[in-house]
């Protein structure tokens, strides 16, 4: 029985690999797994791609979006891992994929999921309340040396707090970090004047900025953001100085928006999805999404994407080590 079964399996394997050696195209509806809650940045990222694929008919099968945001996205990545070998399940996330396993006991490792592509990089800014006495990063650092600055952000030991700890190390200051459930909450707390600072993405704080309830200090990017129409009466995104030009020596800090496949993925399936995403990246709708959310559109796939992940992992590991966050 066992012999028969294994022979049968290996025969099936031969057929399967013969088929996959030719080309891949989805044969049933495709599941988009969102590793975040409804309405968050990752949800919109996935649904934007879904709508572009449908509109331009980049793939013949329908798409079903499922939200699995439990445990900071751990739920979705673990779920992705259980789909080993299934090319009909795409996992949408952020650098959480390789950062979370370093700081919490979760059920996957970075190299277990199959990377497909990174399509966008979200920016980080320092936002403060409008009545705060500091106008520049330099004044802020001076104020932080003199007194206790309260900084809000999304989640703990996640991107926001990591950035703040880097700022602390670079500027030689100490602040109080208060974790909230989302960047949206941190934006509202800042607008209410309950905290002094947050490190939100542009889209998370633009509403408050327009209403004069928050003020950007600087952006963690090597160059200023793309020019565009004025957001407030006096300022456009490109009028915000970079943190580096204000003397806060952090070259760059961005959050990649990435797509993965489950483990053990045949090469043609990876190539197929990378190709679909590359086509999505080239559409006008994608450019409009990037502009609307003030992100940077950069496409990384294959070797290039893996190199980026490894480098980012190594850089973050150093911060985590210094903060004693690494999970044993």
């Amino acid at each position, binding site marked *: 029985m066992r012999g028969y079964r294994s022979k049968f399996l290996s025969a099936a394997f031969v057929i399967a690999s013969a088929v996959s050696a030719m080309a891949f195209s989805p*044969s*049933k*509806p*495709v*599941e988009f797994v969102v590793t975040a809650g409804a309405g968050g940045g990752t949800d919109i990222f996935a649904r934007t791609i879904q709508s572009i694929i449908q509109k331009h008919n980049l793939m013949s099968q*329908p798409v*079903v979006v499922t939200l699995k945001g439990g445990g900071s996205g751990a739920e979705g990545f673990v779920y992705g891992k259980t789909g080993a070998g299934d090319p*009909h399940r795409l996992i949408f996330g952020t650098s959480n994929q390789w950062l979370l396993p370093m700081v919490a006991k979760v059920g996957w490792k970075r190299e277990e999921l199959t990377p497909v592509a990174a399509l966008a990089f979200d920016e980080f800014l320092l936002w403060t309340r409008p009545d705060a006495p500091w106008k520049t990063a330099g004044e802020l650092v001076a104020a932080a040396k003199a007194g206790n600055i309260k900084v809000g952000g999304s989640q703990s030991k996640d991107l926001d707090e990591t950035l703040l700890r880097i700022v602390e190390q670079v500027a030689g200051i100490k602040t*109080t970090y208060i974790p909230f459930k989302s960047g949206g909450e941190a934006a509202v707390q800042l607008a209410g004047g309950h905290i002094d600072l947050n490190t939100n993405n542009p889209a998370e704080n633009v509403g408050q900025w327009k209403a004069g309830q928050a003020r950007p200090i600087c952006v963690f990017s090597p160059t200023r953001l793309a020019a565009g129409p004025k957001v407030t009466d006096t300022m456009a995104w490109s009028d915000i100085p970079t943190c580096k030009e204000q003397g806060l020596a952090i070259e760059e800090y961005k959050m990649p928006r990435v797509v993965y496949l489950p483990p053990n993925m045949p090469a043609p399936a990876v190539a197929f999805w990378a190709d679909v995403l590359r086509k999505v990246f080239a559409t006008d709708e994608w450019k409009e999404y990037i502009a609307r959310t003030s992100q940077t559109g950069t496409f990384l796939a294959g070797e290039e994407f893996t190199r980026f992940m490894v480098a980012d992992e190594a850089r973050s590991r150093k911060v985590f080590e210094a903060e004693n966050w690494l999970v044993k």
Partner: protein
Amino acid sequence: MPLGDETIVLSRRQAEIGFAILAGLAGFVILFGAMEHDTGWSRSGPEAGYFPFRLGMLLMAASGVILLRVLLQRGPSEPFLSWGAAKKLLAFLLPLIGFVLLIGPVGLYLAGAAYLFVAIGLIGRVPWLKSGLIAVLVPVFLFIAFEYAFKAPLPKGPLGPLFGLI
């Protein structure tokens, strides 16, 4: 409808004791889980294990007091579960557990059909034809509703490839 066998399997006193012990054990498990974290109070407020640790302790204490009270109570106890009632509970739970076990290999719809037929026809003594009809129609309705109308896929087992769905 006769209740069946009135022999007492479990008295209320026994049930109270059993549940209090289980709740106390749960308290211990929580306490144990909380010990993996710092259970203290730092300068900036309670640490991750602070509340779970105290929850566990309180749960053990509260169920301990309940246990003591029951143990100190004298006099006859009311019945909690008769043999007849226990049989009815098992007749309901066992097919349901079988249903859940079957979902993995054959999917929710086929398992559901089998479950409905067993629970309604065999155990509920509803006439064969009627229970058979229900066992087929309910899963078919759910299949159309979930897979096609609402696109909220449920596990399908062998039906998935058959209909070309996720």
